């Protein structure tokens, strides 16, 4: 392996790592606010990519029907809660269960955009409301359950979404057109425009999220909920809003990831699982709490993957997952874990 190959491998690792980093960001975000280890994050990626492919191919993506069904279900759930006398935030319900789905239906069925950016936008509008709707239907009723119960619910949801993915999109995968066809030549190494788009988008999105969490009041409210739910509620922060928002952000990040990878690889209905797993590895390296370390972990996983695939491609997974364990050990020993009472 000479230097050039090493550079190419590193480039590949960084690009893959960037996508894993986005997944890790979403996972850390959702966990820190709602204590849900959101296994189906990978499904958002797959749905985003495949919906984009469907829209680009002039077909109506099946995720639209899922969205409409979930929206109806969410409205029913909120109405039932209102009848039982619980506090219902109709404004946010209207946004997630009526406004977004209506807009998505409009774009997908009536407008049928042909410009790539418009199609991407339509995909984002389609996938983002799935997050808060799933939260309201499946996770919010269990807000006080143990982390293990929430994890199992997330796993069950993952099964449902994978099955739906197969039903909507079939067993064969799809690709989309790349955002940028340019190829740069940097000292003999070919750097595709698409990979620059991927890394660039990851950095921009991370920076935006950083600004959001540090500078805006809503972001700070989310962080407050993550640190102490009860305290946040006492300060008047509606924790249901926090749940909605974190899931919406996660879904949006997932959709963006899907849009980014669809041009560079074929996406299948079950691509999400393994990707989500690697994002999960990165999130755990960050202790499910720290964003920068999670992103660093993601790049590490990407690099490990690409280098071990070069050395022994049949044993790639063995190497990657075995080498993760010392990293976990190191991280675990570094962070003194405060015992979480059951």
């Amino acid at each position, binding site marked *: 392996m000479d230097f050039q190959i090493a550079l190419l491998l590193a480039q590949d690792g960084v690009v893959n790592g960037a996508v894993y980093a986005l997944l890790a960001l979403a996972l850390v975000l959702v966990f820190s606010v709602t204590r849900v280890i959101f296994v189906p994050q990978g499904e958002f990626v797959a749905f985003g990519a495949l919906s984009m492919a469907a829209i680009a191919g002039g077909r109506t993506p099946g995720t639209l029907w899922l969205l409409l069904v979930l929206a109806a279900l969410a409205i029913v759930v909120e109405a039932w809660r209102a009848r039982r006398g619980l506090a219902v935030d109709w404004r946010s319900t209207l946004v997630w269960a009526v406004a977004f789905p209506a807009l998505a239906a409009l774009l997908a069925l009536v407008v049928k955009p042909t410009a790539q950016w418009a199609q991407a936008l339509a995909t984002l509008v389609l996938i983002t409301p799935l997050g808060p709707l799933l939260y309201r239907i499946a996770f919010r009723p269990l807000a006080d359950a143990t982390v*293990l119960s929430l994890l199992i619910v997330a796993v069950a949801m993952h099964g*449902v979404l994978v099955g739906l993915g197969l039903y909507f999109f079939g067993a064969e995968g799809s690709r989309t057109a790349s955002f940028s066809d340019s190829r740069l030549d940097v000292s003999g190494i070919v750097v595709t425009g698409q990979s620059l788009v991927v890394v660039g988008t990851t950095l921009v999105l991370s920076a935006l999220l950083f600004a959001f969490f540090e500078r805006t009041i809503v972001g700070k409210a989310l962080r407050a909920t993550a640190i102490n739910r009860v305290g946040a509620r006492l300060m008047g922060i509606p924790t249901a809003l926090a749940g909605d928002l974190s899931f919406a952000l996660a879904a949006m990040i997932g959709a963006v990831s899907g849009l980014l990878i669809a041009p560079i690889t074929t996406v299948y209905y079950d691509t999400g699982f393994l990707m989500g797993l690697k994002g999960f590895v990165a999130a755990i390296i960050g202790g499910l709490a720290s964003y920068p370390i999670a992103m660093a972990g993601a790049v590490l996983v990407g690099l490990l993957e690409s280098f071990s695939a070069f050395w022994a491609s049949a044993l790639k997974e063995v190497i990657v997952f075995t080498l993760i364990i010392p990293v976990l050990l190191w991280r675990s020993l570094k962070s003194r874990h405060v015992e979480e009472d059951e």
Partner: protein
Amino acid sequence: MNRRHVVIAAIVALAAAWPFLGEFSVTLLCYIGLYSMVAAGLVMLTGVAGMTSFGQAAFVGLGAYATAWASTSALLSSSLGLAAGSALLPWAGLALGLAITGAVAWGLGAVTLRLSGHYLPLATIAWGLSLYYLFGNLDFLGGHTGLGGIPALTVFGVSLASTRSLGLAIWAVLLLALWALHNLLDSREGRAIRALKSGRVMAESMGVNTAGQRVKVFVLAALLAALSGWLYAHMQRFVNPTPFNLNLGIEYLFMAVIGGSGHLWGAVLGATVITLMKQYLQDWLPTLLGASGSFETIVFGLLMLIVLQRFADGLWPAIARAANRWLKPVPPPRLPPPVALPTTAAAPAGQVVLEARAVTKRFGGLVANNAVDLDVKAGEIHALIGPNGAGKSTFFNMISGVDDPTEGRVHLLGRDMGGRPSRAFAALGLGRTFQHVRLLGTRSVLDNVALGAHRRGRRGWLAAMLRLDRAEEAALLAEARRQIERCGLGAQAAALDLAPRLAGRDAAARPRRGGRAARRGAAPDRALRPGRPGRHAGCIAAARAAAHRGDRTRARRTPVPAAARRAGRGPAASREARAGTAALAIAQRGLGHPRRRARHGVRHEPRRPHHGARLRHRHRPRHAARSAGRPESAGGLPRR
């Protein structure tokens, strides 16, 4: 008719109906039995000991592949001197499988069980996937295509080739395993295992080797999985890597959680529900929804979601609650006469038992304790008082071994305890209670107190599983009862026992004098909520500490000192004043009321041993200024 009778009746009915069941029902029962074995191990690991593992499927694979290779390998049969199709080869495979799995589990456990919190489940995913891909890459194991031609089992000349006969073996093994696990949980070691979930600090101060216990539980779960794998290989007679993938690992965890992760029968229930549900969906969905799509996974996932929303604790607790409405409670076990428990000899009065010299603790730049000296003599009571943030808990942690001083030495009974864990302190007779009383909320008062006597028992895992520890258990429980009486809680212990809630004695379980915590904790599906123990919790904790030491004075009713009563905590400390105790009890409680606190930091003074003494304020500041408002925590660690 109580619960035990129902279980026995069900087993007898199953055995009686076995020859008459349909062929496929028998096959299903075989699969249910195999999955239940793995799920039972997971119940022990995840539900009881609190370690989530997704990697059990890999251990099943180890067991299956070991016997697959052993039964078909010409190399092994020739080296053992057996004929190629010998009936002994599967048993060699069993031995090999258990040995390899035990070794791998022990190694993996030693490394990954150090991981705390969320690192552990991920590590289990990591090596679960590693092992799966390893199986697929080894040619002598058949690679991805698999290894076939595995012979059937033969037991004493009887061939278990048919599913009907093998199923009997599977269920016999399963029921035996469940019996052994039940015995284990119902013993001294079982109490220690249960303590692993909700706080290792408390368990360590009672003398439990938590790290060792965790590895042992992990290896136990792995061995159960390997056993299941062995039986699977000889049932299917073909192994390939796909049944040992992460998906199956997740499904086993599913079964444990759906069934009820804290209950052994929950494992069987979960395996049954999931297996049968998959079959029913396969049979009925195509007629309902048309054969065009594959809706089974979707409907299955939706059903699981609904079940989890309704029964967050799993199905078994709900079913047990419903059944216990018309079942009588299980009578307490009849134990043989107790043996004598070892007690430590009392140190002569006046001898220094605990000595701290220039103990300093720094957290980064913060000095929590600065060159503190302390002498505690046998027979005296020392009070350490100070306002919030003074460093009392930190100091307690150091003289009880939970933490190590940055500088200085601690001697207990003349021995230098530098760097020793709290287990070592406990072994020398130190007992400790905590400010945040660490009770096991789902266990009875008796169990909580009996945990304190852990160190005084000797019987280990094997003895517990085989029920050879009953005399010692009787002694430990008798000791626990005695300590509860000493604390004056004897009459109320049964009322406080919210754990029998599960046995249906809801009405009796509500305490007559509703403690505010008991009421708050009386949510329908919860027992004692940890962290809100109520005013009797202090007594329970003290009783636990006393059981650890074997305090022997008669219980006497004494009025509670005013200060302690106003602080709302138990009266145990004053009783200890009269006990010619062998070693030291460290009772830790916050004093609460600001005006009672001394103004200038921590001080210690010998307290005159009669009740009603007022605390004297000596103005001898011996301790560095405390940080402003640092929240007190028993661990003494700075919060992140």
